[in-house]
């Protein structure tokens, strides 16, 4: 079963992305208002979704660690925190390009963009803290505290930026998207999620192996 997942997951994810992007970049029609620029959402939206999912997993795993001292949760938080920064950065850069193409600006004080920026930078600090702390107990507890504090801030960020004003962007342009576009986006989101699960499993194994090694019994030696 485990072997089947190890082989099947990457194949399925990559196949899904190939199909999804071919549909998105060539088959799907151009959007009425934005033209071809909109096609970036077939990568941007899945990447942003996966980043958000990843940060949520990191926060939930951190919470679990603090209450149960589960080292598996610590390893999962490490893996998810890193992948969140990776996918978040991708989503962020693509979002900026999209924004330039549609609104003529690279960045606007949009709640989603700002919240994502805070999470990406916040979790960059999280990774730095983990790398700078050697003792496993301290590393796990401190980074869990950092992840929980970041997650707790999201609702506040949301309201702060909503009220902040600036270019108020509509919740996507649902009326101008046809069924085929929706299906294409759905396939891409699914494929990216599979890709993420594959990455997460791999990264988790590395993190868990490192923790297990750190917490293993010290070597027993006899007197020479």
């Amino acid at each position, binding site marked *: 079963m485990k072997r089947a997942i190890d082989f099947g997951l990457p194949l399925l994810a990559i196949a899904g992305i190939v199909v999804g992007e071919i549909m998105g970049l060539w088959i799907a029609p151009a959007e009425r208002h934005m033209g071809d620029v909109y096609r970036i959402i077939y990568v941007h939206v899945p990447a942003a979704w996966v980043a958000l999912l990843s940060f949520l997993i990191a926060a939930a795993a951190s919470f679990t660690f603090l209450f149960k001292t589960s080292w598996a949760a610590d390893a999962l938080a490490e893996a998810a925190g890193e992948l969140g920064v990776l996918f978040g950065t991708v989503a962020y850069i693509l979002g900026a390009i999209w924004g330039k193409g549609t609104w003529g600006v690279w960045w606007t004080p949009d709640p989603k963009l700002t919240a994502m920026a805070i999470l990406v*930078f*916040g979790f960059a600090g999280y990774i*730095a*803290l983990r790398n*700078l702390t050697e003792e496993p107990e301290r590393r796990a507890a401190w980074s869990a*505290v*950092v992840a929980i*504090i970041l997650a707790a801030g999201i609702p*506040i960020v949301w309201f702060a930026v909503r009220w902040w004003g600036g270019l108020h962007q509509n919740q996507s342009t649902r009326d101008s998207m046809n069924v085929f576009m929706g299906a294409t986006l759905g396939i891409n989101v699914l494929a990216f999620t599979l890709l993420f699960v594959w990455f997460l499993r791999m990264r988790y194994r590395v993190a868990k192996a490192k923790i297990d090694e750190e917490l293993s019994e010290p070597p027993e030696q006899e007197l020479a």
Partner: protein
Amino acid sequence: MTSSFAERRPASLVAGVRAVINKDLLLEWRSRARVNATIFFAFLTLLLFLFAVGPDTHIMAQSAAGYLWLAVLLSSVLSLGESFRMEAENAALEGLRLLPVDPKAMFLGKAIANTLFLFLLAVILVPVTVAMCGVEVQGSLMHGVAILFLGAAAISAPGTLYAAIASQVRARDVLLPLLLFPVLIPAIIGAVKATKLLFAGDPMGDLGRWTALLIFFNATYWLLCLLLFGRVVEE
């Protein structure tokens, strides 16, 4: 033995908090040369922002609130770091833990002392900002004091927690702002917006909403950091 060990009850939370505040304020008073230097650093930061935007008084007046809070924020990294440097020196924090001092008292005491210092700093900076940027203040004094206090408290709660972590890590000087600034973004937005409305007038009646945001931020983070601080100092 003058007292049996079963009778050894720790000090109440309020007494503990008061003792930590007194200790921190006394230490700040003793190292006032350093405190003064931090205040001058804040002034200098403010001045640098003004040089960076050029001599256009209109722009300066418009962005005055932003400069004020950035100067406070940048100086806070120094004062927060200092408040745990003196605990790290001679491992005094370990001494407090082993006495034992309740981590909740430690957090509240240090965060309140940090809030008082940052509030004082903001209060000193306001007249200078107003004068240099040519702002004609519209808001009331009471509102102004409340916003400055809420802003200082908002920086101090996560600031105290993160300074405690950073003081025990190798790259403490870079780690503290890296951890702290992202979390503070909504608080800085709120404080800057509210201050701006006090400076330039509030025709739309938006001040209440930004004050509420700051209060909510403070409530969330003071509670959360209070609960988490024990895990930070005990590991």
